């Protein structure tokens, strides 16, 4: 029993309520948000990790009702990794957003929504109950709807309509799947479901539920062919918000897919591996080819998000321990690197006053530090050794070779090459090219912006330097995903 597991959910919620009460004082709102999210980060590093290292799984029964009857929060190493990543991104982007939105008309509305968003994300990572997963997804989505339209511009409202409608349709499908599993097994606890669904009579229902989950989470994580809403909506949001969406939000859908398939539906997972692999290859290719055609920097990065989602999906599609470990390391790499590259693109946007690549330029001369940051993170995303993207892609390609998926390796390598080309085209256009005659900076590069963006870039570097230990943790987390026995024993208190 780990009574403190509720902290990452309750702290942002309490802070959001406080922020609403303090809406007149921006300074108080900033302080409350920063304290709450830093607290979650400190909790994840200081309390949750030691517990997970010692015991493997941390469980909390809400209201002290024992497992299959009450609602449980349960964290294994994979949850712990995702929670820590989300806590890091939460703090870094908060500092960035404080500087970005500083005394904007929208700033008072940002903090409560942002905190509720993180409550939903943390809840989705920690819950051990399938209906709670739905509820936390909805909490996250409702907050993200609000964040998306912050600013009220035409593109934002148009993007939000598409985003809201597709999200709600996918949530409805998820709920139907969860309802179906409840109808068969009579329980909502994920560990209990895993045991009850193992019998042969549940198989036809589980098969339907597995496909519903695949579509529902596929929409949320922008898997081919369900990704069209992403480039139409994410780039319209303000840059710090687009960074959280691109870096973290799509990964929550992937996390849910990893969790439900490995824990609840292992037989269906094995049966659908070829579908997952095909979807992964097409997602990678569609994202990379889409990025190739973009002239708008934020849209280009949104397509790159899709391409990386495909890479993470390979891990689930191959299903071996090596592949899952590579997938989990990929989560670490991509959440940090993708958020970082959005933040750095935001700095370039501030400096040149535009996101149109043709109108940008001259940044290498004027801002050599910014250029160095961009180059480092971009090369990491593309997968150039010895950076973290190389470690992640190497692990994934080695696992594909082990599984004799040679076509997949070909696609992955071609996509990496395309990614490198696309990101270097940004380098050539925005940084190397001479400055256009009329450059009007949109704002100053304040201390908060520079510190948070470069801090996250250093963390991307740290993920490469610490690749050994991190990869070991990813291996252990993958082993837990494949051997669910200890998880079931811990949750059901056997």
């Amino acid at each position, binding site marked *: 029993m780990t009574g403190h597991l509720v902290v990452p959910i309750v702290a942002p919620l309490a802070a959001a309520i406080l922020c609403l009460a303090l809406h007149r004082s921006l300074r108080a709102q900033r302080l409350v948000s920063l304290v709450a999210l830093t607290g979650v980060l400190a909790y994840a590093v200081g309390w949750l990790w030691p517990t997970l290292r010692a015991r493997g799984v941390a469980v909390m029964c809400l209201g002290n009702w024992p497992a299959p009857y009450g609602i449980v929060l349960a964290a294994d190493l994979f949850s712990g990794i995702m929670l820590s990543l989300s806590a890091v991104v939460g703090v870094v982007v908060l500092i960035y957003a404080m500087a970005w939105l500083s005394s904007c008309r929208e700033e008072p509305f940002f903090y409560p929504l942002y905190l509720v968003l993180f409550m939903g994300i943390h809840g989705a990572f920690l819950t051990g109950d399938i209906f709670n997963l739905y509820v936390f997804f909805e909490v996250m989505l409702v907050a993200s709807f609000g964040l998306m339209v912050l600013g009220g511009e035409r593109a934002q409202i148009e993007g939000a*309509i598409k985003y809201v*409608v597709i999200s*709600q349709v996918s949530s409805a499908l998820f*709920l139907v799947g969860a309802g179906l599993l*409840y109808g068969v097994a009579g329980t909502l606890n994920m560990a209990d479901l895993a045991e009850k669904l193992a019998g042969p009579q549940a198989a036809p229902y589980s098969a339907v539920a597995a496909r519903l989950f695949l579509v529902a989470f596929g929409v949320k994580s922008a898997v081919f062919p369900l990704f069209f809403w992403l480039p*139409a909506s994410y780039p319209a949001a303000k840059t710090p918000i687009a960074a959280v969406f691109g870096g973290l939000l799509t990964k929550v859908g992937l996390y849910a897919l990893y969790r439900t398939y490995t824990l609840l539906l292992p037989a269906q997972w094995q049966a659908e591996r070829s579908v997952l692999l095909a979807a992964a290859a097409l997602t990678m290719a569609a994202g990379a080819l889409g990025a190739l055609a973009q002239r708008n920097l934020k849209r280009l990065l949104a397509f790159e998000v899709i391409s990386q989602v495909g890479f993470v999906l390979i891990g689930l599609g191959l299903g071996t321990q090596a592949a899952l470990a590579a997938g989990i390391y990929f989560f670490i790499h991509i959440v940090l690197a993708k958020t970082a590259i959005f933040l750095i693109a935001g700095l370039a946007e501030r400096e040149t006053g535009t996101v149109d690549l043709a109108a940008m330029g001259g940044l290498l001369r004027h801002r050599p530090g910014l250029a160095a940051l961009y180059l480092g993170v971009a090369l990491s995303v593309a997968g150039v050794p010895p950076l973290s993207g190389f470690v992640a892609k190497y692990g994934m390609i080695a696992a594909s070779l082990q599984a004799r998926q040679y076509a997949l390796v070909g696609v992955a390598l071609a996509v990496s090459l395309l990614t490198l080309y696309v990101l270097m085209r940004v380098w050539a256009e925005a940084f190397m090219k001479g400055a256009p005659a009329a450059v009007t900076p949109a704002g100053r590069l304040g201390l908060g912006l520079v510190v948070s963006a470069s801090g996250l870039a250093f963390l991307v570097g740290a993920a490469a330097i610490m690749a050994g230990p991190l990869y070991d943790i990813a291996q252990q987390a993958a082993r837990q995903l494949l051997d669910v026995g200890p998880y079931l024993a811990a949750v059901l208190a056997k």
Partner: protein
Amino acid sequence: MTVVMAIVVGGLFAAGSYLLLRRSIVRLIIGLALLSHATNLFVFTMGWLRQGGVPLIGLSPSDRMVDPVPQALILTAIVIGFATQAFVLVLSYRAHEETGTDDLDQMKAMDLS
């Protein structure tokens, strides 16, 4: 009773999906509402439909009781659906103010940038 519910749920899903494929935003919103009703009824049906099966010890024999959990679940889902539909209505109003149209095909500011 379950057969009737199956037909109703299927009909609602069909109607909702049809409306979601329209270009008009108003129809889109009605489609979303129908879809969430269909989902709620589906989950509701999962808890058995029986007359007089009050799930309280002493009021009905234990093998005749309905399952109250799905009813609690859809109560949550109804509230969430209500909130999002309210948000989408406001959003569509703002979209009409901003673009002067109800046609989704006219809304591609982001695709053209």
